[in-house]
């Protein structure tokens, strides 16, 4: 017998699910079962705690963008809770979730919250960057979305050998197949918002690229983790040494993807190998590189100077 609660939730063992989340769970299996059933409660709890945090830190606004931000954060917290929680049994799930959240928010600058990042293009960039912190596919894709680098360009820029370049190609492939779409979904950007961004990139590329250029330092300084302890900016000479002596491969990927200044410097230095001699610059791309997509690099499809290129690429993409 499973009586219905007034709000429609089912009861088990004579208790509503939310009450069971306050009780002790003793086995991993019990934890998994309970959590699978109570995802809505868990998400709502994590979301409301995030809202509270935003309110208390004067970062709240009563609009859908803030609601979405809180949901996205709640989601990320619950995702971790689901995986970590099973290693903490016996425990009381709600207490455990609360302590995970408390711990998260006690980090320095836990949320990337900046007013400018609440615009569609800001949310787009923020979504990409926050995903790149946990996904290497997204990390590699930043080179494309920010600068228009194809997989071949990325491999050359990073000075990778055979094995590593295969990995980069796989990163691009997975990103194209599912990673990008999942990231857009998790960011809460709707199809129409993305379409509007595309539209703006088509009609006013310089305007949008300047905006990206302006937002990048804000965004990158937040998500460029491990700073300054482990992966600081390097001098031109140090970068040269790193490439010449062939070490620090992870350093190259992680830092260059998240530091515009170092990227521009290294890309410029290596541009004989990387490009056709044009200066590297910010060059926003909304959709992932289509399969076998070839594109002109460094200004080729930016700034309306070679507008035809952009349109051709986009047309072939939509028809693909």
């Amino acid at each position, binding site marked *: 017998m499973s009586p219905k609660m007034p709000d429609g939730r089912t009861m088990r063992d004579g*208790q*509503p699910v939310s*009450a069971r989340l*306050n009780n*002790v769970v*003793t086995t991993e299996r019990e934890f*998994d079962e309970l959590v*699978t059933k109570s*995802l*809505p409660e868990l*998400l709502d709890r994590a979301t409301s705690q995030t809202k509270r945090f935003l309110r208390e830190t004067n970062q709240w606004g*009563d609009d*859908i963008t803030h*609601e*979405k931000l809180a*949901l996205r954060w*709640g*989601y990320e917290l619950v*995702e*971790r809770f689901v*995986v*970590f929680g099973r290693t*903490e049994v*016996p*425990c009381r799930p709600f*207490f455990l979730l*609360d*302590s*995970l959240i408390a*711990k998260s*928010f*006690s*980090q*320095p600058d836990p949320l990337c919250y900046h007013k400018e990042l609440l615009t569609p293009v800001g949310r787009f960039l923020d979504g990409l960057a926050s995903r790149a*912190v*946990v*996904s*290497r*596919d997204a990390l590699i894709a930043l080179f494309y979305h920010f600068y228009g680098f194809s997989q071949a360009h990325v491999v050359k820029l990073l000075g990778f050998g055979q*094995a590593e370049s295969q*990995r980069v190609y796989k*990163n691009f492939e*997975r990103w194209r197949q*599912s*990673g990008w779409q*999942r990231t857009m*979904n*998790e960011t*809460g950007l709707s199809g129409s918002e993305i379409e509007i961004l595309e539209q703006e990139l088509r009609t006013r590329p310089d305007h949008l690229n300047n905006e990206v250029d302006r937002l990048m330092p804000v965004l990158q300084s937040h998500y460029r*983790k*491990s700073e*300054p*302890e*482990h992966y*600081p900016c390097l001098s031109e000479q*140090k970068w040269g040494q790193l490439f010449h002596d062939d*070490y620090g*491969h*992870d350093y190259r990927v*992680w830092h260059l993807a998240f530091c515009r200044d170092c990227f521009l410097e290294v890309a410029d230095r290596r541009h004989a190998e990387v490009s056709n001699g044009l200066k590297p610059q910010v060059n926003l791309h909304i959709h992932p590189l289509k399969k076998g997509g070839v594109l002109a690099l460094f200004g080729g499809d930016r700034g309306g100077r070679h507008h035809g290129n952009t349109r051709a690429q986009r047309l072939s993409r939509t028809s693909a």
Partner: protein
Amino acid sequence: METPELNDYRAHLLDALDDQPRRAAEERPGFLQVLVNHERIGTLNCAQTDPSFAYTARERSIQHLELRSESGALIGGCVAPEAGQKSVRVPVGKGSLTLHVQNHFDGGSLRVQYEVAPGWWSQLATAIGLPAGAAVASTQASPVWSMTTAFAQVVLAVGVVALLAERIPVWIGSEDRAHQLEEELAARQSTQDQIDQVHRQLAQLVESQAAATAVSRTEQDRIAQLNTLIDTVAHTQQRLNAQVVAVQEDLKTVKTDVAQEVQTGMRVAASAVEADRELVRQDLQAVKSVNETLVKQVALLESRNRELHARLALTSLEVAKANASSKPAVVAKNEPPKETPAPTAVAVSDNLREADRQAFMFWVAFQDGTTEKSIEDLVQELNGIKKGPMKSGWYSVEVNLPNPEPPDRFLESVKRAKIVKSVVTSKAMPPAQ
């Protein structure tokens, strides 16, 4: 606020959460990203022979560990106590990951290991005596640092000395002592070159010392490599000494005057190397200690702040756990449905009542003009410890409550102290700043 768009988004996220276990289970073990305290610190390549990954954190313990696939799917992880250890086993594909974290208050270490479950093939292989790893691709060549070339040269120098020893009887016969000494000098020169090279590297290292705090990791790698080089030089030294003995043995059978000369030459070469090695070692020690001091100073400032926050947050985790383990499961199951209070400060102190000898933390503010001395006295009277510096007028104090004493009554008694303005319990932050 409820709009269709928001509801859609929420539904989307719930689907993704629901799908998470399936996605994680589907991941094939390939490259796994290791994240510590939300920072990517390395990659574990599961295709390697004996795939394992080790990491040591300084200044801050490893509180938060995540393993994610290249696509970002969360495969496994845990939160670890600030001091102490935690081990977790996570099934991945056909194998499993073992995570082991060992923390102390100002750092920690981590070891991740991937093990493939033995399949029928490897069991069969073991049975018929084939090497188990035969099917696995050999380890990737690690990036070659320019100093490996130097190692090779040192080894070459040793080779020359060895040749020298072998050829002694021939030289005796031909009386070609000039040539013999020349070769020996060349060998010595070659070793000297290596030493010079180490000196140059050290000089460079000292130069980059200015940026040491920032570039500490790179430097540490170098120090490790220099250490290896020192070891190699030491090894050379040993072999050189061994050669001296060998040559001595050989020379016993030939004319004493020749023997004397060669022997002296070898001695000089050997002791020069010895002296240089000592110098290098001293230089290295100096560089190391300066580097460490710099790194520590910078990190300390930041970690103090973070540590305070993390410690406070952790208290609530510990409370949740202690609370859980203090209640037998049977009792929990038979509990009547009860009200579900939000876990506020009150709830936390409730839990503390159940938890045996839990350290209990609270925030206290003092009347204006209270001296540091009388604050210290009060804290001492309570048998408490002040945790961290004052924050916006609030001190955090930790006490060990005797078992039967309820925190509320205890707090009441603290409040009655003359110098105390206010007392609160709060999970993470000092109250209203």
